[in-house]
C-alpha cells in the first residue's frame, strides 16, 4: 500500500532531481540563449530579440578568430604530444620494473594535485629565469605538461586490465617490439588512448590560469574572453563556446559508442579467461 507519505516523498525526489538538473544546465542554457541575442551596444546582458546574425558571422570581433584558432591548434598539438608521451610512460611504468619507476609514476601525476596558480607562477619564473620568450611555444609546453598526467592515468587503467602474455605471444610469433606495439598493443589500448586524448583536448582548450602566466603576447580563447569580459562580452563568444561544447559532446558520444562495442568484446573475452 502506498501511503500519502510515499507519494510526498516521490514527488519531493522528483522536484529535487529537476532542481539539480536546472542548477547544472541553466548557465549553459543562458550562454546558448544569449548567442542568439540581437543586442544593441556593447553589452550582452539583457535579451533584446532573436537573431542568427552572430552564428552567421562568429568571427566578426577583432582578435577572436586568432585566439580561437590558437586554442584549437594548441589543444590539438598538446593532445597529440601528450598522448604519444603518455603511451610511453604508461607502457614503461606498467610493463617494466626499473629504478625510479615509482618516482616517475608520482611525478607525472604531481601536476594534477598542484594548484594551477602555483604551477603557472612556477612556470612563469622558470621561463623568466631561463630567458625564454613567452608565447605559443611556452603555452604548448605548459599544456603538454599538465595534460600528461591525465593521459598517463587513463591509458594505465586500460593497460592494467590487459594480459601481458598477449604481447609475449606476438613476439613469440615473430613480431619485434615495434611490430608488437603497432599490431597488438595499440589496437588493444585504443579506447583508452581515445578517451585520454579527448580528456587532454578538453582540459587544454579551456585552461585559463596557467595559460595566463605563460602566454606572453599570444591570445587563446579563454584569455580573449577574460579580456573581453571587462568591456562587455560580444555574443560571438557565446556562439563559439556553444560550438565547442557541441563538438566535444559529439566526440564524447562517438567515443562512448566505440568503447561500448569494444567493451562488449572485452567483457566476453575476459569472462572466458576468468573461468
Amino acid at each position: 500500500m502506498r501511503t500519502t507519505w510515499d507519494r510526498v516523498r516521490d514527488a519531493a525526489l522528483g522536484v529535487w532531481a529537476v532542481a539539480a538538473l536546472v542548477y547544472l544546465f541553466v548557465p549553459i542554457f543562458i550562454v546558448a540563449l544569449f548567442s542568439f541575442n540581437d543586442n544593441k551596444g556593447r553589452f550582452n546582458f539583457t535579451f533584446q530579440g532573436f537573431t542568427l546574425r552572430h552564428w552567421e558571422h562568429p568571427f566578426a570581433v577583432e582578435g577572436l578568430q586568432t585566439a580561437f584558432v590558437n586554442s584549437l591548434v594548441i589543444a590539438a598539438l598538446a593532445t597529440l604530444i601528450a598522448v604519444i608521451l603518455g603511451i610511453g610512460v604508461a607502457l614503461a611504468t606498467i610493463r617494466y620494473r626499473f629504478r625510479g619507476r615509482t618516482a616517475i609514476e608520482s611525478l607525472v601525476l604531481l601536476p594534477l594535485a598542484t594548484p594551477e596558480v602555483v604551477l603557472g607562477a612556477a612556470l612563469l619564473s622558470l621561463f623568466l629565469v631561463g630567458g625564454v620568450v613567452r608565447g605559443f611555444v611556452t603555452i604548448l609546453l605548459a599544456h603538454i605538461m599538465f595534460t600528461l598526467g591525465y593521459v598517463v592515468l587513463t591509458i594505465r587503467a586500460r593497460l592494467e586490465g590487459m594480459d601481458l602474455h598477449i604481447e609475449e605471444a606476438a613476439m613469440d610469433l615473430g613480431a619485434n617490439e615495434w611490430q608488437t606495439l603497432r599490431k597488438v598493443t595499440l589496437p588493444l589500448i585504443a579506447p583508452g588512448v581515445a578517451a585520454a586524448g579527448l580528456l587532454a583536448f578538453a582540459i587544454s582548450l579551456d585552461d585559463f590560469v596557467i595559460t595566463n602566466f605563460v602566454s606572453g603576447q599570444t591570445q587563446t580563447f579563454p584569455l580573449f574572453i577574460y579580456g573581453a569580459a571587462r568591456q562587455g562580452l560580444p555574443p560571438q563568444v557565446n556562439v563559439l563556446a556553444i560550438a565547442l561544447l557541441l563538438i566535444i559532446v559529439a566526440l564524447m558520444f562517438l567515443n562512448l559508442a566505440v568503447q561500448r562495442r569494444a567493451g562488449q568484446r572485452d567483457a566476453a573475452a575476459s569472462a572466458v579467461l576468468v573461468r
Partner: protein
Amino acid sequence: MDQHSAPDIALDGITKRFGDTVAVDDVSLEIPKSSFFAMLGPSGCGKTTTLRMIGGFEDPTEGRIELAGQDVTRVPPYRRDVNTVFQSYALFPHLTIERNVAFGLQQKKVPKAEARKRVAEALELVHLEGMAHRKPNQLSGGQQQRVALARAIVNRPRALLLDEPLGALDLKLRRQLQLELTRIQRDVGITFVHVTHDQEEAMSMADTIAVMNKGRIEQLGSPTELYERPRTAFVANFLGVCNLMEATVVARHSDVVELDTADGARLHVAADRVNGSAEGGRLRVGVRPEKLRLAPVGQASGTNVLRGHVTDASFLGVMTHYVVQTAAGASLTIVAQNDGGEGLELIGPGREVDVTFSPKHCFVVEEEHDDA
C-alpha cells in the same frame, strides 16, 4: 631418430635469479628431437621460468641455451625457432581466429596462398574448421586452447613450448585434450616441451619427464623409471603415494642387500637398487602401495615381512585402501586389488597383519639434503 644431429634444445648450467631468490638453479638438460618432454613440479619449482627462458621471455642470469646446436641465449623471442602455448592462451582479442593463426606466417612473409592453406590445415588439425571467422571471445575455453595450439603449430617450429596449457580447463576437457595433444605431437613430429604440475598428465603424455624442485632437476627419466625407481623422496612422493622406511645396511650379497628397520625387521632389497652404501649405512627403502601384500599373521611367506595392525581400511570397489601401523610406528599405505572378491571381513581395522613385498619392488632414496 637421427643420432648424430644436435638435440633440439640444450640447456647448459642455466640459472635465473630474481633479486635474492633463485628461481632456476644450474639446470642442464638436453631434449632430443621429436620427443614429448615434460617438466613436472610443484608451483614455484622453476619449471615455467625454465620454459620462458627457452622461449626467450626471460634472460638467464647464467648459462647457455642452444636450439639445434645454435647458441640463442641472448636472441629475442621473435628470432627463435620455437613457439609457445600460453596458459592464458593469450589470443589476440581484436583478430579473428583465422588471423590469429595466420599471425606468425604473416610475420615470416609466407605467401598469402600458402599461408591460407597452412592456416586451414592447422585449424583442421585441432578440429576448428568452421570457426575461422569468429573472434576469440566467441569460443569456449577448450576451443581457445586449440586456437592457441594451432597458432603455434602452424609455424612448424623446431619445438613447441606448452606452459600449463590445460591448467584452466575442467577435468573432463583436460583428459580429452591430453589425448589430442599426444595425437597431434605424433602427427606433426615436433618436439613438445610441456610444463605441468599434474603428475598424471606428465606420466600419461610424456616420454621423458624432468621432475623439478626448488629450481633444480631432481630426476630425469621415463615415466616408469621415475615411478619405479625414484632416486629422491621428493620424486617418490610427487609421482604418487609411497611408503618410505628408515633402514640400516647389515649385509651385502651379490644379488640382495640386507637391511634392518628400526623395529628389527629384516628387509631384502635387490642389490642394483643400493649404490655404494657400506655396512652400517643408513638408507630409506621405498615401496609403492600396490606392491605390498597383506596377509593374516603367520600366513605370510616371503623375504620381506613386516608385522603391524590395520588402522584404516576403505573399500573402494576396484580396490581397498589400507593403512597399517608397524611396530616401529611407521604407517604404510597399501592398495589391494579387489581381484579375489574377499574384502573387509577378512582383514578389518584392528587386525594384526603381516605385510609382505618382493625385494625387486623396492627402491632406495637418498637422505633428504634439506638446505632450508
